[in-house]
């Protein structure tokens, strides 16, 4: 058996000294290039009824992670729509973030091993933040469990408080959930990313899909030269079909299952596989998974395993755009934004029917769903053998994302929620 060190030396790693500077973020009008002017005008019409209203976003970090990434785009775009938007991140000591990390894992179903005093520590830090921050906005949007107890700051008849939950609460550890639930139930509403992630609560629960930014480095159209150079850099043959899964090296993403599906496909069609992601250098489990993947791949030079640094958005974009089929064979999944990215790029996608994926991949309409390695292999073969069908799925997929999973749709949902709250309560705050 190959040792883990030897295995890792065979993996292509790209580790520049420092990430390149990010390009400036796009303005609202630039989105009309992908959405049409009418859709942007419609957003402005919705927002015109909220002109001057204030929104306060609160989460646990200003940088890193999916929530910060979304807020980094959403806040300036909402400001362009003449809303007064403020964004704060709560602060806390290492003990607080150790507790919230344990909360996060427990809410995903793991056991909770911290002592009961941790709940008090959690509340103490929430209280500190409550005293430090001001909560005078018309709409207070509190993101995820870390700041959930800030609802204590709500004054009677003042502002609408909304809890935005970005995580899957379908199978939570009940000790942690039972602690949080009374706080959540005091909000005016809760937002989930999928019906499957929600709980039975005493407050209205809204469905807001997560979103991608079509003008970001990861999703914008790239010049063909750049795509060709990227393939060349990773020694990928541009003349043969390419199957790609973009995911961190995690067992729940089933990269070994993807290799097995690829081996079945290769019996029929001469093609290549790319497994690209990160997480193998700073995560002991990621290293182990990477070793398993490499072992499953054996000496097949048509399987390209790429351990990419976090600032590889352009490379990932290029790989997705160069792909013939995009795969997401997860065993468990949140919403699956890598699927959204593939669909947006008009690619035929074969994905597991887990988490938020069925909301995106409507079987035989916007992609193909599969439930096994064999099923995944069959659908890939089918799409490679039927390029016209693959193209039609890709076109439908692009439209599906355009309508539902772009940052502009997300903003539209926020505006609609704000309008709904104002209309249904005549400004008395959460309908009280």
């Amino acid at each position: 058996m190959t040792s883990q060190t030897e295995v890792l030396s065979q993996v292509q790693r790209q580790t520049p000294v420092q990430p390149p500077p990010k390009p400036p973020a796009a303005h609202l009008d630039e989105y009309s290039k992908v959405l049409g002017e009418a859709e942007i005008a419609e957003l402005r019409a919705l927002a015109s009824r909220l002109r001057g209203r204030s929104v306060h976003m609160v989460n646990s970090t200003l940088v890193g992670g999916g929530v910060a990434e979304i807020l980094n785009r959403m806040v300036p775009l909402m400001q362009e729509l003449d809303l007064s938007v403020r964004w704060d991140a709560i602060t806390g000591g290492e003990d607080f973030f150790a507790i919230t990390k344990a909360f996060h894992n427990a809410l995903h179903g793991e056991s909770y091993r911290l002592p009961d005093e941790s709940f008090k520590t959690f509340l103490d830090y929430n209280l500190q933040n409550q005293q430090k921050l001001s909560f005078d906005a018309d709409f207070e949007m509190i993101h995820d469990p870390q700041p959930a107890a800030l609802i204590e700051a709500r004054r009677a008849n003042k502002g609408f408080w909304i809890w935005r939950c970005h995580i899957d609460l379908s199978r939570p550890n009940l000790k942690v959930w039972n602690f949080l639930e009374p706080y959540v139930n005091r909000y005016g509403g809760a937002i989930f990313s999928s019906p499957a992630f929600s709980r039975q609560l005493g407050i209205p629960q809204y469905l807001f899909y997560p979103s991608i930014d079509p003008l970001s480095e990861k999703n914008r159209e790239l010049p063909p030269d750049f795509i060709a150079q990227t393939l060349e850099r990773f020694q990928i043959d541009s003349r043969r079909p390419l199957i790609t899964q973009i995911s961190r090296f995690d067992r729940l993403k089933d990269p070994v299952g993807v290799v097995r599906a690829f081996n079945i496909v290769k019996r029929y069609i001469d093609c290549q596989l790319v497994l690209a992601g990160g997480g193998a250098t700073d995560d002991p489990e990621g290293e182990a998974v990477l070793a398993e993947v490499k072992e499953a791949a054996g000496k097949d030079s048509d399987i390209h395993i790429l351990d990419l640094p976090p600032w590889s958005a352009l490379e990932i974009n290029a790989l997705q755009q160069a792909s013939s089929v995009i795969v997401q064979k997860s065993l468990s999944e949140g919403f699956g934004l890598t699927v959204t990215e593939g669909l947006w790029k008009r690619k035929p996608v074969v994905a597991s029917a887990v988490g938020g994926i069925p909301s995106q991949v409507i079987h035989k309409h916007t992609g193909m769903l599969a439930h096994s390695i064999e099923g995944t292999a069959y659908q890939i073969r089918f799409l490679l053998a039927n390029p016209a069908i693959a193209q039609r799925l890709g076109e439908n997929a692009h439209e599906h994302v355009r309508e539902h999973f772009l940052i502009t749709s997300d903003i539209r949902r926020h505006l609609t929620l704000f309008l709904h709250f104002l209309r249904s309560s005549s400004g008395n705050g959460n309908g009280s």
Partner: protein
Amino acid sequence: MSTTEISRATEPFQFETASYLILIGNHTAMNLADFSMGLGNCSDASIFYHTFQSLGRHHFLTEGFSNDFAQWVLNSCNRPALAEQLASVDVRDYVSLVELRTDLRRTVDEYCKQNPNVSSQSAFEKFYFCETVEEEVPLGFEAWTLEEFHDRLKDLPHGALEFHFITSRLRLQLRSNDFSQWVKKELGLQDLARKIDQIDIYTNTLDSARAAIIQLVEKELRK
């Protein structure tokens, strides 16, 4: 451009758009028996969301997609015959959600009666009954003549097209749409109204439906 050019409406067509919030309901189904119960107990807004609005949400699909119920029965329950029956329900035939609910539930119940062993079989994925809250917003422009109507139609966002052309049927309680109603009532163009109403929303995308309406209006303007 003789008659229509000088026809000016007494009341203008007010272009509006609607934006929808999706509310996650309390009913779920893991098999056809649960599903039938959910169809009976869910809100009218839920029936509306999974049928009329499903059509709007998937307007870019022109084949084989009718409503969320049929899609779930096909993909999660693997019951193509029942899925086909549910998919064949044409929302244009309904001006009341009560009737639509009754027909959908009867279809499921009859299937389960004929196939008693399948009603309790677990689906691959749960069905979540959701519903929507609608927020209507005027777009800030109107049309007094057919020519103005034509010009505005070209740049109408999808939300507004869905609002005026699909979901309007329930609002009007008629087997018609806002555009047809206006050109008939305000401009006296009965034939144009009928032809716009004939456009098949199941085999067209919203964009192709828009193109078809524009073509009909242009033909009228050339008269």
